[in-house]
Each structure stands twice: as structure tokens, then as C-alpha cells.
């Protein structure tokens, strides 16, 4: 709550305004029955047309003013809730996208996604209602009771007592509502997960004739979900009838007691009237709304609390520390000196005592199987994580001095997955260098063997890629991200398994033009393929986080057993 409330601070004045308008609006509503009682008592009883018209006119004026107040209040409330929701969405997104890797992976991609979309929406939806309730309900209830006191003390007391009775009945019904909602949420997730699994595995499932089995699993999750949702809705469905029953019965009691008190001459002397009793009974309706709204809030509060806690957890994470360097590109030899690394919260070292040097302008390969720690090296080279031991330096300057910005300016990397973003091909490549000319973009796309793709679309460079590149293949994504990587003016270029989705023919063409384009720059190629590594100036063979061999292909074939096995398995005996 502490972290979220400040977002409401700029709207303090508006919230006060709503409160004021709400008082006016509620008073307006509450005055109508009072005026009606005056018509009955003073007008009808005395047969005085003037009084009837006078109070009637007053009622009309009051109704109009009260409506105007309500409309104004609606406008202010709409502004507050829309701004609050938008501010909250923005601040959580800014926070999450600015996190460092350690905190990012602590909550995880899907966790952050739920928090910054679903949870935030829930908070703003409910809190819109919440503001209404906090402001309106007390005024409605207090107003109703106060007016009741004007006509009779005892009747007002009956009204007052009926409210806690309604809450007492509703409390056990609504108490476990949040648990039911949570359970149903879990089954929705389960149903969706199973469905996603089924759709992605449709071929295997059909090959093994398992569609009935998979359908059964989904149907079960759906039925469980429906069971809990219905239970929750049924419980929530009790709120209105129960409130109505209790308060209406209170009205009956008020009538009985009122009739009794009316026959007491002393009280009648003091001004208790038939109109007064009738009006008081009508206040029940006013209070009824307040009580129902309060019960609803009570039912939603636990759900809100869960969402708020989860969002707060993100908002309270520390920002990335300020950058040490000036963000300029650094050139020179890349040196890893005795580097070790273990992921946060993990005992296991993925990299241990790793030392190697890649000279400026050289092309080096790092080869190893899955789980050898290859991709971790990339994360260290980009300063996603600092090494837990040893140091990395570029051009003789340690990474800590160059700073995060400088490191990421100097090292341009293409990642295995080949990430593209929603937008045009041009946008996506230009992320490497926002000031690059269209000509430069065409050139790097040509190097990445994407010219044919660009030309096959009418829109050319302005062809729009769908979210996460859903409308292009894995190989095309890899090539667009290679184009982006080389467009960036860096000193070291790293390709992490970036050719894995390409066939040898395409790879061969791409690598040839790449080497011409990046002549004089440092290249590091991380790969599983021997053919990709073979012709590099230097090859580092990685196994279980350590280097087990380094040198040129010809040397390694003779000296390194692991390398020899890799080559033999991939290229056959003749290559060794």
C-alpha cells in the first residue's frame, strides 16, 4: 500500500472534491423524503395547495441540483480512476523494464507479466470502486441515519442496529470468497496451460491417438474451475437478497414501533407525525444501497490485497545502480581473467576459473555442448551479471570502470533466439543504430541473406513483423537480429548460436559476407557446430564451465579429446 498510495497523491484535491460533491448529492437525495413528509403533513392535511406546490418546486430544484452534482462527481471520479490506472501501469512497466537481471529473473518473465497487466488492471478496477465506497458509503449511511433521527430517535436506532445484523449474517458467507476465487484462477491457468500444451503437441498427440485423453484432462480442469467460480458467485449472490431481507424486516419493525409511538400523546406533542414515520421507512432504501456496497467491498478486499502485495513487491525492488562509465565505445583486447560465475541463489558454479584472451580483430569460437556454460559467457560479456570471481577487461580497462552502458555499446551481440519486436523490418534493424540510413540497413540485411525476403514483400523494409515475429520463421528472426547486431557500431561482435536455425548453405554465404563486413573487428562465435567453429582464428572448447582446450582446428583435433569427438560426430570420420 505504501508504494501505491503516493500515486494517488497528485489527486488529493480531486478526491476531496468528490467527497464534497458526494455529500451534496446524498443530502439532496435524502432531503426528498423529508420534503415529501412536509407535503403530507402541512400541505395535504391542511388542504393548502400553495404549500404543496412550494415544496414540490423545491423538490424539483433539489433533484436537478443533486443530479448535476452526481454528474460532476462522475467526471471527477472518471479522471481520478483513469489517471491512477494509467500512472500505475506506467510506473510498474518502467520499474520492471529497468530492473537488472538478478531481480528480473527472481520474479520471472511470466510473474512480471501477470503483475504488470492482470494485477494492475484488477487494482485499478477495484480501487475505482473502492474510492466510491470510501467516500459514498459513510455519507449515505450517516445521512440516512441522521435524517431518521430528525423524525424519531427510536426508529433511527432500529435502523442503526439492522446494519451490523446484515454484516453478521454475510460475514461467514463472504469470508472464504477469496479462497474460492483463487482456486478458480488456478484452474483457469491449468486449463489454459493444458490447452496450450495440447495445441503445441497436436502432432505427437494424434500420432499416439491420445486426443481423447488430452480432452479429458482439459475437461476436468474446466469442470473444477466452473465448480469454484459458481460457488464463489453463489456466495456473492447472497449479498443483495440478504441485505434486502434484513433491512426490509427492519422497516417492518420500524412501522410497528412507529405506530405504537404515534399513539403516545407526549411524543405527538413533540412533533412525531405520520409523514415522519413514513419518510423514515423510506430511508431504509438509502441505507440499503450503502450496506450492499460495503459488503461488496468486503468481498473484494482480499483479492485486492493479493494484487497490491504482488505489485508492491515489484515496485519496491531496487533500481539498477547508476552507471560508472561514460557510455563510450572501448576498443582493444578482450581478456577474461580467472572468471567464475554462479547464478544468484544457486550454489552451483556454471563457470569456473575461466581465462582467455581474444585479441582485437581476431575471430574466436567458443564451442561446447548444451549445459557447458556457453550462453553464460555471453551474459558476462554483456555485463548482464558481474562475475562472482575474477575479472573481465576490454582494451586493458576493467568492466567495472567501463560501466554497463559502455560495455553494451562496445559489445554487440546476437542472441540464440533471434528476438524481433512488433514493428517494421526497418525499425527492428535500426535498433542497432537509430541514426543509420536506409541504405546502411539494406546493406546489413543483404549481408544477413535477407534481401530475398525483403524483396518478396511489397512493403519492402516497411514490412510489419507481428509480435515476437509470429509471421516469420525462426531462421528469418535470427537473420534480422544478426543484421541488427552488425549495424551497431561496436568493437566486439558476439554471435550466440545465431546460425543454429540456418542450413549450412545459407550459413556459409552469410559468414563469408559477414567476415568481409566486420574485417578488423573482434568476433566471438558461440556454437555447438564444429563446422561453424573450424575456420576461426582460435577455438576455445568448453566443457562444464571450464576450458578444456584452445587453439586452431588442426591443433585441437590432435590434442583435445572433447573437440575430436564433437568433430567426429558431426562431420564424420573423414574430417578428423
Amino acid at each position, binding site marked *: 500500500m505504501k508504494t501505491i498510495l503516493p500515486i494517488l497523491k497528485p489527486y488529493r484535491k480531486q478526491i476531496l472534491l468528490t467527497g464534497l460533491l458526494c455529500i451534496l448529492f446524498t443530502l439532496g437525495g435524502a432531503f426528498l423524503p423529508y420534503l415529501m413528509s412536509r407535503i403530507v403533513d402541512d400541505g*395535504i392535511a391542511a388542504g393548502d395547495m400553495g404549500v404543496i406546490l412550494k415544496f414540490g418546486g423545491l423538490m424539483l430544484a433539489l433533484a436537478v441540483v443533486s443530479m448535476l452534482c452526481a454528474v460532476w462527481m462522475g467526471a471527477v471520479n472518471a479522471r481520478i480512476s483513469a489517471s491512477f490506472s494509467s500512472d500505475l501501469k506506467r510506473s510498474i512497466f518502467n520499474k520492471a523494464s529497468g530492473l537488472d*537481471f538478478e531481480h528480473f529473473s527472481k520474479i520471472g518473465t511470466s510473474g512480471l507479466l501477470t503483475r*504488470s497487466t492482470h494485477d494492475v488492471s484488477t487494482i485499478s478496477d477495484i480501487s475505482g470502486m473502492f474510492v466510491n465506497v470510501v467516500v459514498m458509503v459513510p455519507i449515505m449511511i450517516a445521512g440516512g441515519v441522521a435524517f431518521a433521527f430528525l423524525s424519531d430517535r427510536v426508529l433511527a436506532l432500529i435502523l442503526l442496529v439492522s446494519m451490523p445484523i446484515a454484516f453478521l449474517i454475510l460475514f461467514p458467507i463472504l469470508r472464504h470468497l477469496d479462497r474460492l476465487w483463487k482456486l478458480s484462477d488456478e484452474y483457469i491457468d491449468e486449463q489454459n496451460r493444458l490447452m496450450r500444451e495440447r495445441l503445441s503437441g497436436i502432432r505427437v498427440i494424434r500420432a499416439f491417438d491420445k486426443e481423447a485423453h488430452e480432452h479429458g484432462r482439459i475437461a476436468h480442469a474446466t*469442470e473444477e474451475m466452473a465448480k469454484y467460480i459458481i460457488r464463489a458467485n453463489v456466495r456473492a449472490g447472497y449479498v443483495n437478497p440478504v441485505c434486502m431481507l434484513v433491512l426490509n424486516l427492519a422497516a417492518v419493525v420500524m412501522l410497528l414501533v412507529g405506530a405504537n409511538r404515534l399513539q403516545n400523546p407526549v411524543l405527538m406533542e413533540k412533533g412525531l407525525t405520520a409523514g415522519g414515520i413514513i419518510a423514515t421507512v423510506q430511508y431504509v432504501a438509502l441505507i440499503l444501497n450503502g450496506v450492499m456496497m460495503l459488503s461488496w467491498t468486503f468481498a473484494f478486499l482480499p483479492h485486492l490485497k493479493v494484487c497490491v502485495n504482488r505489485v508492491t513487491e515489484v515496485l519496491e525492488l531496487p533500481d539498477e545502480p547508476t552507471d560508472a562509465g561514460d557510455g563510450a565505445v572501448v576498443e582493444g583486447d578482450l581478456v577474461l581473467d580467472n572468471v567464475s560465475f554462479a547464478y544468484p541463489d544457486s550454489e552451483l558454479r556454471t563457470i569456473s576459473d575461466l581465462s582467455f584472451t581474444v585479441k582485437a580483430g581476431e575471430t574466436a569460437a567458443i564451442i561446447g555442448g548444451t549445459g557447458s556454460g556457453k550462453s553464460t559467457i555471453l551474459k558476462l560479456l554483456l555485463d548482464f551479471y558481474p562475475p562472482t570471481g575474477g575479472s573481465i577487461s576490454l582494451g586493458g580497462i576493467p568492466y567495472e570502470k567501463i560501466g554497463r552502458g559502455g560495455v553494451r555499446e562496445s559489445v554487440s551481440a546476437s542472441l540464440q533466439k533471434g528476438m524481433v519486436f*512488433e514493428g517494421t523490418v526497418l525499425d527492428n534493424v535500426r535498433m542497432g543504430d537509430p541514426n543509420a540510413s536506409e541504405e546502411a540497413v539494406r546493406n546489413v540485411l543483404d549481408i544477413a541473406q535477407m534481401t530475398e525476403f525483403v524483396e518478396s514483400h511489397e512493403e519492402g523494409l516497411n514490412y510489419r513483423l507481428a509480435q515476437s515475429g509470429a509471421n516469420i520463421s525462426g531462421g528469418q528472426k535470427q537473420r534480422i*537480429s544478426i543484421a541488427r547486431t552488425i549495424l551497431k557500431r561496436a568493437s566486439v561482435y558476439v554471435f550466440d548460436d545465431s546460425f543454429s536455425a540456418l542450413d549450412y548453405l545459407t550459413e556459409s554465404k552469410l559468414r563469408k559476407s559477414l567476415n568481409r563486413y566486420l574485417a578488423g573487428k573482434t568476433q566471438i562465435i558461440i556454437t555447438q557446430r564444429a563446422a561453424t567453429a573450424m575456420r576461426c582464428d582460435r577455438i576455445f572448447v568448453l566443457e562444464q564451465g571450464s576450458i578444456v582446450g584452445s587453439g586452431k582446428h588442426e591443433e585441437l583435433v590432435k590434442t583435445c579429446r572433447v573437440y575430436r569427438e564433437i568433430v567426429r560426430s558431426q562431420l564424420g570420420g573423414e574430417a578428423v
Partner: protein
Amino acid sequence: MKQQKTSGKIVLRILKDTKPIAGWLVLGAFVALFSVALSLVTPEILRALSDRLYDYWEPAHLGQPATFDNHAFALGCVLLAAAYAGSSLAAIGEMLIMNNVVSKHFTCVIRIRMSDKIRRLPVRYVDQTPNGEIISHMTDDVSTMGTTIHSFLETLISGVLKLIGIIVLIFLLNPILAAAVIVFVPLSLILSAKIAGKSEKYFAEVRKKNGEMYALTEETFTGFDTVKAFHLEKRQQKRQAELCDDMREAARKGTFLASIVQPIVALSNNIAYIAICIIGGIFVANNLFGMSVGTIVAFVLYARMFAGPLESIAQGFSMLQHTIASAERVYRMLDEEEMTETAEETAPEGKGNVQFESVDFSYDPKQPLIKGLTINVHAGEKVAIVGPTGGGKTTIVNLLMRFYDVDGGRILVDGKDVMQMPRNALRSVFSMVLQDTWLFSGTIYDNIAYGRPDATEEEVHEAAKRAHVDRFIRSLPNGYDTVINEETTNISGGQKQLLTIARAYLANRPILILDEATSNVDTRTEILIQRTMDDLMRDRTSFVIAHRLSTIVDADTILVVNNGSIVEQGTHRELLEKNGFYAEIYNSQYELLN
């Protein structure tokens, strides 16, 4: 006009869909009728009670003699209490029916129907429709449909009954006063429906922007490393902020418009209320039409009751468009054309002979892919399919397994046309290992036994041993009972692929399809597993798709696929001698050396 026609059709379809629960709906209507009738009686009782109070007070407060029949008054109160209680209980009964029958029918039952539908849809549908879309139809669209239909039927049943009841009763009480009340109804109804419709347009905009924001957020978080590596945080934040601004405006307008519906209904109600007080007051004061103070009270209460159903009808109209759009998507999926299945009971003998006889096929009629493909594979042979990425190698698997059906020509398995046998019978002679390892969330044991749930424990362990994962599985804390799910991080891609190899081994079927079956496996493990793969292929017909040509040089036939068609066909030696496309691919992997 056309849109209205489809809307009408969808509404009709929804109504038709209530057929299985029609009995319950009738019962619900009866309960609602009961509840409405009782709630309409209450103002009448209150009228009588108010008259008694007023008739006593009017002379009494002027000091004139007056009597009050306490007994009759108490009886009236008891009646009133009974009416309130009965009405509330009936409302609870109606609520229970609506939730347990209507909501269940329109959410749970429809979702299960959709899941069942997928069993009968062709793979083509699943390939062409983004998975997220299918899931969103099944969750969001059905949920929108369910909620609105619930409140729609509720309004239809109790709201309309109530409105009619009130109108009849007030006209019976006093037609002139009734006319004064009714005159404002259509006005406020039309006005609020219009406003609500307009606000719904803004909310549709908010939902659209919300969808875009979800996509942006998802892409930023899944591509977090790229975002960081290229300093894209600011760019993404700017785009998100723009969406936030758009959304803020639309949400503000929509919320504001939605919020003024209630004051408008309230004002028109209050005007009716005031009209009742003034006109009624004048009538009573002048002793016209036999009006009493109680009649005024009853009128006021009836007028109050008007507001609820009116508001929900106005709301219902504004949601209609949105609901119809959702319902349309749901029904469109349920109406998708299903696969046709042959009635014949023939099954392949399981020898493993496969023939393609001048097969034509294309995914898109505008771009013919395979034309006149003829292959003759004898039982036990190894067929390799090679070629560049995206060239169409997987198409052959799709046709063999009848994930897609040929456009022309025939495919014969053991001499029988595959179109003449049920799909599951055809598929029962195949085992597959695919590049995209697919394991379901469940234990490792169940995953291996997926193709043969009747396998003994020894057989499952043996399959795992053959795939060189037995030792790894046993090293896990829960061994074979380890549950694989989305969060599983201690099993690598390679190990997952080994599990699918074990699964194929255990299934033990005469024809084998290996589509990049070892692409994720560690090179050194691959050497170990090669023996198992050779075992697997021995005495079986096998179709092997591979990047690494070293694994397929010994194939009986190599099909070279490029741009969707078979460009060359022969053994490794023949193809090298031909010095064509195959030779180029084969040499390209060594070209990287130079």
C-alpha cells in the same frame, strides 16, 4: 444492415442454445414471477399501513378523537414481513438456478464443447490459428458471453416481469398519476441506452489498447536480454507511455459516460416522484379520485422499483455488441469444418512398405508445393530427407501421418490407400521423434509410456536405458516420478529429446519418423545414442530428416527438397556424382573450413 442481420442470427443462436436448459429456465421464470409478484405486493401493504397511520394521526394531532386498530396494523406488518421474506427467498432461488444452470451451461459446457471440437479439427486449423487466439476464445470470449447471457436472461425474466407488473398495478391504482410516471420512462430509457452505447465504444477502445499493451509488455519481458543489450528500455517505455495516454483518455470518457447513466435514471425517477407528490397531494387535498396518502406512498415505492430494471436494460443494450462479437468468435470455432473420417475398418498390416504415387500437395492453392511425387520405399529401408531450412521437408511427414491430406495422387502403406483407413489405424504403425520435443506436464514415467500405457515397468526402464537417460532420471530426487512442467529447469533440452526417443523406442512400431531427432542432444551423448538409433531403425522403415549430413550418408534413398519440391533423389554416392544441389549442400559444410 448486414451487421444487424448477423447480430440477430447470433442472438437467435444463443437462444436456441438454451434448449438443453429450457426446463430450468421455465422454473427460473416461475420463481422469478413469484419473487416479483411478492415484491409488487409490498407497496400495496405499505399503502394500507400508511393510510392507517395517517387516518389516525390527522385527527389526533389536532386533538380530535381517533382510534387505531393495533391488531389489524400488526397483521398488516406480519403480512409485509412475510412478503419481504418470500420475495428474498425466491430471489435467492432464482440466483441459484441462474448460477448453477445458466452460468454453468454457457461457460463450462461450451468450453468443454470447444475442447472436444479440437479433436475433430484438422491439424491445418491448429497450424493456421495462433494458439493464443484459440485459448482466448475459450477463456475470455466464453467468459464475456457467459456473464452477459446470465445478466441478460436475468433482466429478461425478472426485469421485464417487474416492469409489466408495476405498470399494470399503478394504472389500476390511478391512471392519471400512472401516466405521469410512465411518461418519463421511454425518455430516460432511450437516453441512457444511447449514453451507455457510447461509453461502450470507449471501453472497446480501452480493451483494444489493453491488448496492445499486453503484447508490448510480453515482448519486452520475453526479449529482456535483447532489450538490455541494445538499450531498448527507453524505446519500449516510450511506446508503453503512449499507450497509457491513449488508454487514459478513452477510459476517462468511457467511465464518465457510464457514470452518468445512473444520475439520469435517478433524475427521471425523482421527477416522477415529485410529480406523484404534487399531483397526488392536490388530489388528496381536494378529495379527488378517492386518493389517499397511502396511495401516494405506494406510487412512490412503485416508481422507485422502476429504476433497477431500467438501468439493467440500458446496460444490457450497451454490452450487446461486445457480447455478440465474442459469441460470434466462439460459434465460428464451433462451426469450423471437421475432418471427415472413413467408415472402413481396414488397418495397415504393419510391414512397412510405403509408396507415394504421383502425389500433389500444397498448403496454399496459389502456391503449388509438391507435384507428382513418386517414391517407393520397401519395408526396412531408410529414407533421408535433406534440404535448406523452410524448404518443405516436414511436409512429407505431414502427408505420411495424414496431418494433411494429399490434393492428388495416392499414398499407400502396405499396399492400402491411406485415405481408405481411419487416421488412428494409420498412425498406429508410426513412431515419431521430432525436433520440437513435446512432453506433457506429468511424470517422466507417464511421458515415456505415453504411446503404450500398458507397458510394464521393466519395459519403460529398458527404453530409458536404450535412450541413455535412465541414469539421469535415477539421479533426480524423485526418479521416474519426477513431474515435468513449465517450471522444470533441471532437465535440459537434450535430455527432453532423449525422453522422446525413449518414448518412440517403447512404442515399438514398424515405421519410424525422425525429424531432427537429435538436434538438441549434446554431441557427445549423440555418439552414444547413435547405436540406439541404429537399433531403432534396424528392420524398420524409417524417414529421417537431418541437418547433419553425416548421419544420413548410409540411407537407401536420399530425397533432396528445395522450395517445396523434390529436386533430387538417389543414394549419397549417386547424388555426389551428379554434382547438383545435394553436392552443394554437402560441400558447404566443409566450405566453412576454408
